[in-house]
């Protein structure tokens, strides 16, 4: 794997990159936007580095996409990098949400049609995240073992509603064993 130290992005480009992610992600779907920006457009991370960071961000409690920004920022430039990514991702959205909240609290209720349009955007954003899952699965799950790990986690937590720590306590060792002793991809 290429040594990433060579192309360390500047603090400003980290801030701007994540500001771009934050502003494009109407209705959620941040993971999809983050991968597009960080892996495809800017090449700061390889696909595998992004995926492992994304997994760790989901495993640590808290908002996944904020975690991911801090994780990437720390990897790239330590504490200042983490701050640049966090502020980039949240600064403008915070202002927009506060503004929308003030409007909403001022008008006592808001417009019904706006609510309907918002629910449609939310539904699409949810679909984008699922679609990202499909894309990542097609690219990364080329063997039966890892594919079964993904399936068990998706069904166990998403359908059977088993607690996440329990599912991971079972599946993570299996996934590690496959990664260590399974045939290389």
């Amino acid at each position, binding site marked *: 794997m290429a040594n990433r130290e060579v192309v360390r992005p500047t603090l400003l480009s980290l801030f701007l990159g994540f500001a771009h992610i*934050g502003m494009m992600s*109407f209705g*959620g779907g*941040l993971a999809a936007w983050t991968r597009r920006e960080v892996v495809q457009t800017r090449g700061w991370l390889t696909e*595998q580095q992004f*995926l492992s960071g994304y*997994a760790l961000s*989901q495993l640590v*409690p*808290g*908002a*996944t996409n*904020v*975690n991911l920004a*801090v*994780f990437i920022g*720390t*990897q790239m430039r330590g504490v200042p990098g*983490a701050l640049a990514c*966090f502020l980039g*991702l*949240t600064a403008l*959205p*915070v202002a*927009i*949400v*506060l503004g929308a*909240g*003030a409007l*909403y*609290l001022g008008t006592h209720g808001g417009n019904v*049609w706006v*609510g309907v*349009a*918002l629910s*449609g*955007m*939310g*539904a*699409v*954003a*949810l*679909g984008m995240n*699922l*679609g990202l*899952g*499909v894309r*990542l699965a*097609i690219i*990364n799950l080329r063997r039966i073992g890892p*594919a079964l790990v*993904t399936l068990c986690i*998706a069904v166990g937590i*998403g*359908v059977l509603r088993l607690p*996440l720590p329990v599912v991971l306590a079972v599946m993570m060792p299996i*996934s*590690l064993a496959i*990664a*260590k002793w399974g045939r290389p991809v």
Partner: protein
Amino acid sequence: MIATLLKLFWLFAILSMLAFGGGAGVMPDIQRAAVETYRWMTAKEFLDMFAISRAAPGPGSLIVLLIGQKAAGLPGAAVSFVAMFLPSCLVVHALARFWHRAGQAAWRETVERALAPVAIGLTFASGLALMRSTESEYVQYGVTIAGAGVFAFTRIGPLYMLAAGAGAMLLARLMA
């Protein structure tokens, strides 16, 4: 006022540490606390705020700003923001440093390979859980599934997809 700020701080600091797998998982707990326990807002107001925070750019967990704003004005929003994000960011930061120091170690390579299918599984799991908790109409399910297909298999820009989703919901409501 001070008492409300302290309640906000504790609520979100604790919930952020319990939000395994993402902020969406503790949304029902936030709803219960804000509506039933502390009576900061009605159930409808909570759902409206949920919609606003989901549709606005940025992380959906910014809903804590709206709850803090309703409960205690701008100081409430500020306290909620810090309580929600500071603890988990410190944990991730420590983890990222550790990860970075591992460099090209063989075990890191193995763990990264093991984490890939986990990340993809969790992506599906949280998507399915969110569908169940936030969507109630067939049109919404349809829009979500269509969005997933379009995103996975075409290069159509996400902004067009968002506009189409909003249009589909408006059309469905007009015809209902």
